[in-house]
């Protein structure tokens, strides 16, 4: 009888130990996964910042390239374009349903 209760006690302890090990392993795995995801997220955030920075630079370059000081001389010299006289500008007026000015 006493021998039986001793073996069931050991079994309980063993089960507890196994449970502890499994739980600890799960916690470690979860933390490891979390850390890995954190590194990935940080890397993606860095990439987002880099791309955002690149976007700002490219948009500024586009604005610069499409500005009048850049395009005006090209349009005049290469394409022979010119600023029209005021008499050549047709002003169209158009009413809207709500009475605003489009």
């Amino acid at each position, binding site marked *: 009888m006493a021998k039986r209760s001793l073996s069931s006690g050991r079994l309980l302890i063993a089960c507890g130990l196994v449970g502890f090990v499994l739980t600890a392993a799960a916690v470690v795995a979860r933390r490891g996964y*979390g*850390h890995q*995801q*954190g*590194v990935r*997220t*940080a890397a993606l*955030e*860095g*990439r987002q*910042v*880099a791309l*955002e*920075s*690149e976007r*700002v*630079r490219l*948009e*500024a370059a586009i*604005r*610069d390239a499409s*500005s*009048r*000081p850049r395009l*005006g001389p090209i349009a*005049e010299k290469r394409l022979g374009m*010119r*600023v*029209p*006289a*005021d*008499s*050549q*500008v*047709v*002003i*169209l*007026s*158009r*009413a*809207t*349903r*709500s*009475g*605003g*000015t*489009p």
Partner: protein
Amino acid sequence: MVRLSRVTTVHLALALFALALIGQAVKVQLIQGEEWAERGRRQQYSQGAVAAGRGIIRDASGNVLVESRELMRLTVNLRDMGDRSILLRSLRNAGFPLEAIRQAADPARKWVDLPGLHVPSEVHRLLALPGVAARPVMSREYANNAGIRRIVGGVDRDGRGIDGIEMSLDSLLSGDTLLAAFALDSRGRRVDSPDGWTTPPRAGSNVTLTINRDLQEICERALARAADSLQATGGDIVVMNPTTGEVLAMASRRAGKGAVANTAVTEPFEPGSTLKPFIAAALLERKRAHPDEVIDTFNGEMTLNGRLITDSHKALRMSLADVIRLSSNVGIVRFAQRLTPRETYEALRDLGVGMATGVPLPAEADGTLREPGRWNNTSAASIVMGYELAVTPLQLVVAYAAIANGGELMQPHIVKEIRSSDGDLIFEATPRVVRRAMSPDVARQMRRMLTGVVDSGTAVRADLATFTVAGKSGTARRTVEGKGYVAGNYTASFVGLFPADKPLYIVLVKIDSPRGVYYGGEIAAPVTGVVLRAALAARDAALDRQDLADVKRELSSVDSSGPDADRAPERFGAGGAAPDLRAQRSAAEPSAAPVATASAERTPQPAKTVALPLKRPARVTDRRPRPVPDVAGLVLRDAVRALHNAGFRVTLANGQSVLTLPPAGTIAPAGTIIKLQHYR
């Protein structure tokens, strides 16, 4: 003596070991807990200041003028670098200066701060090396436009505004700086962790200026061409909406690369004849003269207190209207003798001469207007001719705006609105009248007189074929420090009201020290014409097309010598002796064009008007402000239609979602241009 079995001894040893472990744990956790926790935090987290991005500065149409982006400042810890040859090769490939590479190769050095700020994509190979650390730095990306740079200013290394709008609105533009904690991995890289800092710092507020980028570029180009062709030392162009006080463009140019000041507000000048209309307005306001009243002008020569006053356009007699039209010094001095010095002073003071306008730009100059008690015996004559006082170009434009809008001196403003980074409205500019400077009737009479200046006076070169332009030219001698007035050194200027009947623009053009021809009507007035033609042809130059359609002249009324060339003399019914300069110029110098203006001036007039198959609708009168409709979720076509139906104009921009600027719900006047951001 008790003999312990081997098993008991082992058990005791294990028990003692366990006790020692527990004791150590108690010591570490309870006694030294704080110290170890702090040491752990130091190893696993780093603290640092995180600055939020500064706000975006846009023009009135929503075009971005300045925005922030994150760049990297690199540091190399050379002790962590095993083989430096890889580092040196990477530095060479990335285009670092030789000095930095030499420092990195120096075996005595422990670390190197690499120069410059870098886009991460350009230095990603370097960042992969051990020991290379990057510190994010917010950098400002400015429009590559000198004029806009003069207005928006700049920031220093620490991101604080040091000039222009960046300086005056620094507290609003700069975001919060937070002390943040970051989790670090074993290599010292930042890792996202719930234990670290999570709340992002609040970005700075976004500022929308009243400046119109297209018009600004038009002005800068016109000024650059004029200054180059005239070999001038500099110049300024200011364009303002006289009804709202919005500054639409402010271009400045000075010789020398280092000249970056916004001289339209910082550098006063003697306005010369452009000041005469204000004296005429003071006379009319006090009923001391009438536009048709004629006085002797002594064939353009008069001596007053030992000083000889002369006219360029000589006549025996002139009306007040002709005195303005032909810019007679003798005439204005004679008429101004009807005003006391105090009245002259007060008239000019009421128009803002000698007082800073209060526009939010640093270092705005007050100008100069001395009290009558400090005048000498020739000061009264000098002042009414535009000497012995100084105004900034912006002050002069504001004063002319009073003539244009019916007599009200407007508070000029350059900031249209400020919104928080969340889109909440913090500030919105509204037109503000400082004071009434003249009655509406006097302002109307003055506009008629100024129309005569462009019709047949000193500034016919500012005229347009299909619109009436009013204005006044000025040619003032310039002083040189220590030498006084120097022969051949002039300021040529012209202030135009466009269109004359219902001005939408006040345009000031000022050219400093031009070579050769130096009259304002000859060189500054044509530049105004160039600006106006380009603005009319531009897609969005802050012009209300509906208003323009109403005042546009029919081409059939334009004769070969120009529009309404002979109207002015009869209009005021007095200038029999005063010459019509348009007719004189047509005969004497048919093609002289001292300034290389835009090729539009060479454009032949069209032979006929093309009738478009469009039905002109009834004039829209409902201009009341209304809310911008919510177009979120609509396809582009429907969104545009909804905005048009609500009475707004629409300009398109690429974006990540269908959004409007100003946002939905904002109260805006009918006809306002709404920037519609949409998917491409």
